[in-house]
């Protein structure tokens, strides 16, 4: 469903992503990890067609993002780390706008919006202007908007930041449920416990290069660490000089 073929991306002279190749199947919950500045957000932006690869190709559902960008974007939903909401729209109006933008017929959009309001428990504030929403309320509304058109690919960047434990639990259930229904979930996060619990496969990127990709078991083998994902991650992303001195 998501395919990156030898993708590289330059920021001026700096190589942000180098020769990255990934193939992610439908219904897979794929976690994308890396230290700050490793190239995660750049990769995500290339998946959404916001940035173009310097070399290589990105495709979603078989559509190349450069040639058939609008068709590819029709299949996906992107929830960034700092999501955007129109401050002067109510939550309901925002959901309606998204449904219209993705071309949902009137009757279908009405039932989907009602479902989303139910699923994310938005009743209490859905008719208030979004400028009055708390962080949690905003995050729930953004996820409702992301799912209202039933995307085949859901790309999520740091979704758990600022959420209370109940909301995190609800979010984890939601992401798992979406993957089980056949949606490809591309999750970028620093919350290693969430990734460890949810991910089918994990990729770790550092300085723009893919250093590991596979199931948690495969990553443990590669790192020669039999512990939690945190230990695996720290071992695989240890600075080179540390790797030499501390094998």
């Amino acid at each position, binding site marked *: 469903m998501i395919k990156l073929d030898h993708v590289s*991306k*330059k*920021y*001026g002279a*700096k190589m*942000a992503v180098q020769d990255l190749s990934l193939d992610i199947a439908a219904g897979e919950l794929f976690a994308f990890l890396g230290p700050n*500045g490793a190239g995660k957000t750049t990769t995500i*932006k290339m998946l*959404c*067609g*916001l*940035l*173009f690869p310097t070399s290589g190709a990105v495709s979603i559902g078989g559509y190349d993002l450069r040639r058939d*960008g*609008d*068709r590819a*974007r*029709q299949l996906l939903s*992107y929830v*960034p780390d*700092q*999501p*955007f909401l*129109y*401050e*002067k*729209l*109510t939550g309901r*109006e925002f959901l309606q*706008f998204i449904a*219209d*933008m*993705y*071309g949902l017929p009137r009757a279908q959009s009405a039932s989907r919006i009602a479902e989303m309001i139910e699923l994310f428990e938005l009743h209490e504030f859905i008719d208030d*202007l979004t*400028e009055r929403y708390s962080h949690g309320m905003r995050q729930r509304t953004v996820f409702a908007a992301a799912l209202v058109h039933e995307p085949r690919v859901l790309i999520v960047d740091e979704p758990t930041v600022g959420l209370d434990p109940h909301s995190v639990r609800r979010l984890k259930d939601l992401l798992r449920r979406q993957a089980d229904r056949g949606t490809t979930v591309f999750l970028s996060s620093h919350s290693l416990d969430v990734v460890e619990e949810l991910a089918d496969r994990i990729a770790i990127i550092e300085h723009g290069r893919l250093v590991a990709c596979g199931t948690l078991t495969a990553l443990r083998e590669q790192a020669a660490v039999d512990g939690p994902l945190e230990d695996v991650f720290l071992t695989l992303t240890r600075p080179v000089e540390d790797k030499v001195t501390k094998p």
Partner: protein
Amino acid sequence: MNQALLFQKLRLRLLRNSWRAMTQQSSMRPLTILLCSAIVWTFIFAISWGGFLFLHTEVGVPLTGEIVGILLDLLFLSLAVLLVFSSGLILYGSLFASPETAFLLSSPVAVDQVFAYKFQGAVAFSSWAFLLLGTPILIAYGLVCEAAWYFYVLLPLFFLGFVLLPGALGGLAALLIVNYVPKRRKQVLSVCLTALVLVLAGWLYRMVQAAPTELWREEMREAVTRLLSYFQFTRNPLAPSHWVSLGLRRVVRGEIGAALYYLALVWSNGLFLYVIAAAASTRLYRRGYNRMTTGGDLQRFPVLFRGRNHKPAMDNGRLPLAAVGKENHRESWMDYLLYAVLVFVNPRTRLLLIKDFRTFRRDPQQWGQVLAFCGLMLLYFANIRRFVEDVSGPYQNSISFLNLCAVALLLCTYTGRFVYPMLSLEGRRFWILGLLPLKREQLLWGKFAFSMTGGCLIAGGLILVSDLMLLMPAPPILLHLLTVVVLAAGLSGLSVGLGACMPNFRERDPSKIAAGFGGTLNLVAGLLFLLLILGLMAVPWHMEAYLTMMPFLSDRKSEVALLSEGFIGAGVVLGLLAGIACVVLPLRAGIRALREMEF
């Protein structure tokens, strides 16, 4: 749903909800905005109506003739130039720097539809001022010319068609600059603005050079004809501004067929240029966004990727601000100069002011406008004697007073446009200032000192040049300087105080903060204060100077002088008191609001 319709629906909803939110918060706010707009509109209408009537009845200038045509040409050409820059800048911000951009570009909406949506917003925002300032002039023109009813129907159609052209040109420029010179976009803008100012200055200089010979030494008709030749560039048959001017004059003459021809010419060219811009957006918008994000001159990348061994410069006895400056930009002599000038301000507050100054300095959109106005004013003041060879008597008196008024207006614009938004621009990071080991009132006093120092230096310098060029005697020069200081203090107090009472931490664009309710209120209050101070401190001296020149009062000069001295003295004292009140009262209110502010 059709995507164009979708965005129209979105815009209508946003407008409706904003209006509702505003009226729910306070019905006074929209009422005040409407009232202020109505006052400004009526004022301009009255002046224009009087002006056209004077031209027509007193001077005998035919209103559908060439002289008025040139005035209309100049009006629409100036508007076109302003609109190219303003809609280009607004579109650049809206297309590439707005948080909405990433949201829309990651959706399946066609990119030309996003461009169209942003284009309409930018053109509406950049040309609303023309609606307020231009319509009263043109309606007054129609009324004085006794134009038929269809003049008022065709007027908005001409205007709508016309704004498409500079809007599309500005949009195209924004797309091309971001695509082809993403690292040098600010420099390109600065070069364009400088070139524009130089061309304008050169033209003004030629006019100034020509004016004495043309107006005072030759026959009036011939002189005016020659002077008009300097405006020929506004009458280029290929200039859309000329088509609008011609079209409107044809409507007034009742030549409806010719008028419709020009209307069609304006609309067809406007739409054609818009189609070119929209077509360019399909190829260049996403590409430009990509180039600007990854190849543009974003300071964060060089700093982020400077390497692990990079350490910031240590403070070894130099100014503490130097260490911070070396992280991203070179330290500047201007920071040191300001640090030295503001010696009377608490050192911690001074550092905050250096921060404000750096932010201001690194945004050419901000200081470019002040620099352009100051430069033009300075050019005029420096050449003032070319207009009036004999700078004594009534010319000297009235010109020096008018120059003082112009400088006062510039000061009012500077404080309203740049000082009022200063506190709001701290934005959502305001809590950082709230946590500093600094009394909150110090923050406001610091901004006040910054504004007043800048205001005094700019306005004081300008008025000094003007008065010296006019060979004014020392007492009025001192009086003008004192007036400027009182104005700078009062206007700074008003802007800083009201800025703290009505902060808008959500908005990041200073022009939008200044154009909001608080900014408009501040501008109106500033104008009233300006009128009061000029009336109290400058008018009595100039009235005395005027009256002593009157032949019928020549035998009563001593009485006039005695009476005027009393008025001048009382005016200065009252002006000083008004200035102090305008500093203390708004700042006290601002400090109270700031103390009660929660983060």
